[in-house]
C-alpha cells in the first residue's frame, strides 16, 4: 500500500517560517504556564489576593491562560497565513520577482 498523506496539498514553502514562529510562541506560552505553577509552589497565598472585579490571582491567571492561548493562536494563524500567501501563492511569487 502506498504511504502518503491522505490529501496531497503540494509543497509548503512557508513551513520553515511557521515551525520557527510556532516554537517561539510555544516557549512564550510555556513560560507563562510555568509562572502559574511556580507561583502556586513558591507563594500559594498570593493566589488568593483579590486583583480584578473581586476575582483573585488564581482565577484571573487561570482565565488569562485560556484567553492568552486563543490570542496567541490567532496571532500565529495571522502570521502563518500572510507567509503562506507570500510564498505559496504563484501570483505573489511572480509579482515579487
Amino acid at each position, binding site marked *: 500500500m502506498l504511504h502518503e498523506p*491522505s*490529501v496531497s496539498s503540494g509543497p*509548503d514553502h512557508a513551513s520553515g517560517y*511557521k515551525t520557527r514562529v510556532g516554537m517561539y510562541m510555544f516557549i512564550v506560552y510555556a513560560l507563562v504556564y510555568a509562572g502559574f*505553577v511556580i507561583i502556586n509552589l513558591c507563594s500559594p497565598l498570593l493566589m488568593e489576593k*483579590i486583583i480584578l472585579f473581586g476575582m483573585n490571582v488564581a482565577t484571573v491567571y487561570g482565565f488569562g491562560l485560556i484567553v492568552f492561548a486563543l490570542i496567541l493562536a490567532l496571532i500565529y494563524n495571522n502570521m502563518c497565513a500572510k507567509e503562506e500567501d507570500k510564498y505559496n501563492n504563484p501570483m505573489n511569487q511572480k509579482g515579487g520577482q
Partner: protein
Amino acid sequence: MSIMPIVLFVAFVAVVLYLSFYFAKKTQGSKGYFAAGGEIHWSVNGIAFAGDYLSAASFLGICGMIAVVGFDGFLYSIGYLAGWIVALFVVAEPLKRLGKYTFTDALDSKFNSKGIQLLAAISTLVVSLCYLIPQMVGAGVLVTPLLGLPHYVGVIMVGAIVITIVATAGMASTTYVQFLKGGLLIIFSTVLCLALFIRGISTKPAQGGKVPFYEYATLEAKTVDQQVIPTNGKHAFLDQIDHRGLTFVKLSKESNVSWWIKNTDPNGAVVLKEVQTEVKTSNGKYLINGKPATNNSQLRQVGNLIKIGGEEEDASSGISTGSLNPFKFLAVFSHKDTLVQRWKKTSFKHNGDHVSVYYPVETTGNRLMRPGIKFKVEGTPLQKFDFVSLMLALFFGTAALPHILIRYYTVKTPACARKSTIVAIASIGFFYILTLFMGLGALANGVLNPATSNMSAPLLARSFGTFLFSAISAIAFATVLGTVSGLIVAASGAIAHDLFDRFGGVLQSDKQKVFVGKIAAFAIGIIAIILGIVFKGMNVSFLVGWAFAIAASANLPAIVMVLFWNKTTSRGVVASIIVGIVSAIGLILISPSMYLRYGLDPATAPIPFSNPGIISIPLSFITLVAVSLLTPSKRAKNNIAASA
C-alpha cells in the same frame, strides 16, 4: 420518571443514526473510512475536535471535582486547554504533512520501521482502551437516572450505537456526531450558566422552591471521661469512635439511631453536628441516615454557602444575592469572609457494620478559590512534586492522544489543520471557563450527591427544571457517543492500517483494509461493552488520567523528536515508546492512589506521588536521545562517510 429525557435521547440517537447511514453511501475506500476523505471543512473539524475532546471526564468529572474541591478541579480545565498550545504550535501542521491515517504514519514517515509500526499501534490501543473504559462506565452511570434502565443496558446501548456509527461510515459519520455533540454541549452549558447567574446565590438554596433547604442540627455537648455526651437530655449516648483524627458519636432518640461528628463552635464549646450515613449491617441490611434505603429514603443533596461576603445570615430566610453578573458571581466565592459548606466522606467498621459517614466541613472563600485543597501546594516537597507532575502531564498529554491526532487527517491542508485547532481552542477554552461556574453553582445550590460528584452538572440542571435536565443529560450521553466513536476509529485504524497493512503486509486491496477496519471496530466495540460492565463503579476520571500520562510519556517524546531532531533513529523511537508505556503504567501501579484501591495503606506505597508524568516523560525523552546516539541510522552514517 419524565417522558422528556426519553424523547430527547431518542431524537438525538435518530439523528445520529440517520447521519451514519447517509454518509455510509458516500464513503468509499480507506481514505473515506479512516480520514473522511480529507474533505471535512476546518470549522466543522474544529467543533468536532471539541466534541471529541470534551469527554465524560471533562463535562462530568471536572464540574464534579470543582463542586467538591473548588479551584483544584479547575486546574484540569487550565491544563487540558494549555495542551492544545502544544498541539497547535508544535504538532498540527507537521503531523498533517507527514501522516496518512494514523499517528503511526507520521512517526514512521522517515523510517519505514516494523518496530515503530508495531509499538505505535500498541501504544494507540493501550491509550484508547484506558480512555474507553471510563466513557463506557459513564454511559452506564448516566442511563440510570435518564432512562431508568440498569447500568449494563446503558453500556450495551452505547456500544451498539457506536458500532453502528463507526462501522457504517467511519470517520465521516464520527466527525458529524462529534460536531453535533460539541456544539450542543457548549450551547446548553451556556444556557445553564445564564440560568445560574439569574438565580444568584442563597445561603438556604431550595432548588427554585422544588426541594426545601434542610437544616442540619447542632447539639450542645460536654466531654465526660473522654466521651462526648449531648446535654439536651433527648438524645442517648450509644457509642463513640475515633477515626483518622475525627470523633464520631452514635446517638439514639425514640428508637432512631444516628451518627454525629464532634466539633467546636466559634466560642470553643464542644458541639455535635448532624451527618449523613450509609450503613451496611452485618446481617445484610442497607440503611441510609438510620432508615432502610428506599426510593424515598436516599442521601440528601448537599452543598451551600453559610456566609456570603461576611454578611451575617438571617436565621429564617438566609441571604440571597439576587441576579449576579459572572464577575460578581466569582467575587462572592473568592471573598475571604464567604464561608462554604463542603462535604467529605470517610468509612469505618463498627461492631461488624460497614459505616460510611458524609460530614460537613466549612471552608472560607479565599481558601476554596485557590489551589491547595486537593493538591497540597503548601505541603511537603513531595506533595508539591505531585502537583508539578500533574500540570506537566496535562500540558503534554493532549498533543499525544491518538484519537485527537487522527482528526488532523480529515481536513485538506496543513493550513486547515491549523485553523481547525484554533476553532478547537476557542470552543474548548470557552467551555472550560464555563466549568468553573457550573462546578461552583453545583456546590452552592444544594444539588450535590455526597456519594458521587460525577452527576453534579446534570443535577444542577435538574434544579432548573426537567427540560434543562433532560437536555443536559441527553448531551452528556451524546458526549460519551462522540468520544467513544473517535476512540474506536483510532483503535480500528491502528489494527487495520498499522498492524494488518503496514506491519503485517497481509492486506492486498483498499477494500480489504476497510473491511478489516469495520471488523476491528466491531470487535473493539464488543470489548468496550464488556469492560464497561466489568468496571462498573470505577471512578470515571481515574483512567483518563492514566491515558494522559501514558500518551504524554509514550507518544509525545517520539512525535516531537521525529519532527525536530534529525539524529532520531527508529530504534530510539521504539525504545522511547516502550520506556514511556512501561514507566508510566509501572509508576501508576505502585502509587499511593493505587495502594488505596488495593485496600493497602497509601503511606506504604514505594513512591510518594500519584502522577507519573514528571518521571516518565523525561525518562522517555532521555531514552530516545541515548538510544538514537548509540544506534546511528544508515542515512546518518552515509552522511558522515560522504562528508569525510
